[in-house]
C-alpha cells in the first residue's frame, strides 16, 4: 500500500507550549501569537517528532490511507 505523508496542524487544539518547536530536528516550526506554524524557508522531513511530544495532539503526520484505516476501524467496532 502506498501512503503519502503530510504534516497537519490543528490550531484550535494548540496551546502554544513550544515543545514541538524546541525539539523539531529541522527547526521547521515557530510560534506566532501563541500558536504553532510552519516556519518559512525550512524543510519538514516528516519525522513525526512533533507528534510524539505534542501534549495536545495538535500536530501530527497524516497518511493518505487515513480514510481507509478509519473505515476499517468503524467496521470492526
Amino acid at each position: 500500500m502506498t501512503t503519502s505523508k503530510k504534516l497537519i496542524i490543528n490550531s484550535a487544539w494548540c496551546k502554544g507550549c513550544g515543545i514541538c518547536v524546541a525539539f523539531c530536528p529541522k527547526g521547521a516550526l515557530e510560534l506566532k501569537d501563541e500558536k504553532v506554524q510552519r516556519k518559512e524557508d525550512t524543510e519538514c522531513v516528516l519525522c513525526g517528532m512533533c507528534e510524539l511530544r505534542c501534549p495536545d495532539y495538535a500536530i501530527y503526520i497524516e497518511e493518505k490511507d487515513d480514510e481507509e484505516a478509519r473505515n476499517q476501524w468503524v467496521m470492526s467496532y
Partner: protein
Amino acid sequence: MVNRGDVKQKDKQMSNLVYKYMRPEHLPHIWCPGCGNGIIMRDVAQAIENLGLSRNNTIIVSGIGCSSRAAGYLDFNTIHTTHGRAIAFATGIKLANPSLEVIVIAGDGDISAIGGNHLIHAARRNIGITVVVMNNNIYGMTGGQYSPTTPKGAFGTTAPYGNLDRPFDIAGLAYGAGASFAARGSAYHVQQTINIIQEGIHHSGFSLIDVASVCPTYYGRKNKSGSAVDMLKWQRDNMIPAEKAAKMEPSELKGKLVLGILHQVQYKEFTYAYDQLIKRLYEEREANE
C-alpha cells in the same frame, strides 16, 4: 463508548491514534499548556495499539488528580475512582475477571501518599495489573503542595522554605515491596517509554512504570525550573539508560534518574494462584466424597 461514526471525517483534526483510542468530544483536554500528562497518555494509547489489545477487554482505572483525568479522555471501559484507591478498584476488577487487561493511571500523590498502602500490598501480592504513574513531583490538582516524590529542598505551597523530607523513588518502592516489574520512563523519552509500558502490560504479574512528567504550572513555577521545554530538556540531559547506569558508580548517578526496566522477575501471578487454590480445594472435596 462513543459511536465514532458521529465524528465526520472533515471535523477529524486528529491523528488516527487519537481518534481510535480517545474520546474526541472531551478534547482538547484541560491540562495546562506543556503539561507532560498529555504526552504520557498518548504513550499509553500507542503501547496498547502496538500490543493489539482489544478495547473491550481493556480497563483503565484512575484515582483523583490532574493525571487521573486520563480515564475520562481514553476511550476504553474506564473508571475514575476516589483519591488513592485506584489499585483497590483495579484489584476487584482483575479478580472478578482475570482475562481483562487492567491499567491504572495515577499521580505520584495518588499512588504513593494516600494510596501508598494499596501500592505496596498489590506489589507484594503480584496481582497482574499495570500501574502507570504520571509523576510530576507535586500535587498538581490542589495547587502545588509537596508530594512524597518532591525532592529534598524543592519548593511547594506547603514547603515555602524547601522540603525537608527525602523523596520516594516509586519504582524502587514497588520493587522493594515485591513487584515483579518496576521501570521508569519520562515525558521526554517517548519511544523508550512506549516500549517500557508495552513490556509492563505484557508482563503477567504486577507492573509499575514510574513516568517522570512535567508540571510547568506548579512544580515549574515554584522551583524556577523554567518552561515545559526547559523541564523536558532536564529529562533529556539527566536521565541515564539502565544498561549504562549499571556500569556507573553511585556517586556518578547522584541527581540523575535511571531510565528503563529496573527490575523484572517471574513469579506466580495472584489471580492465577487464587484460581489454582480453588481448583485444588474442589478436587480435594470431590476426592473425599
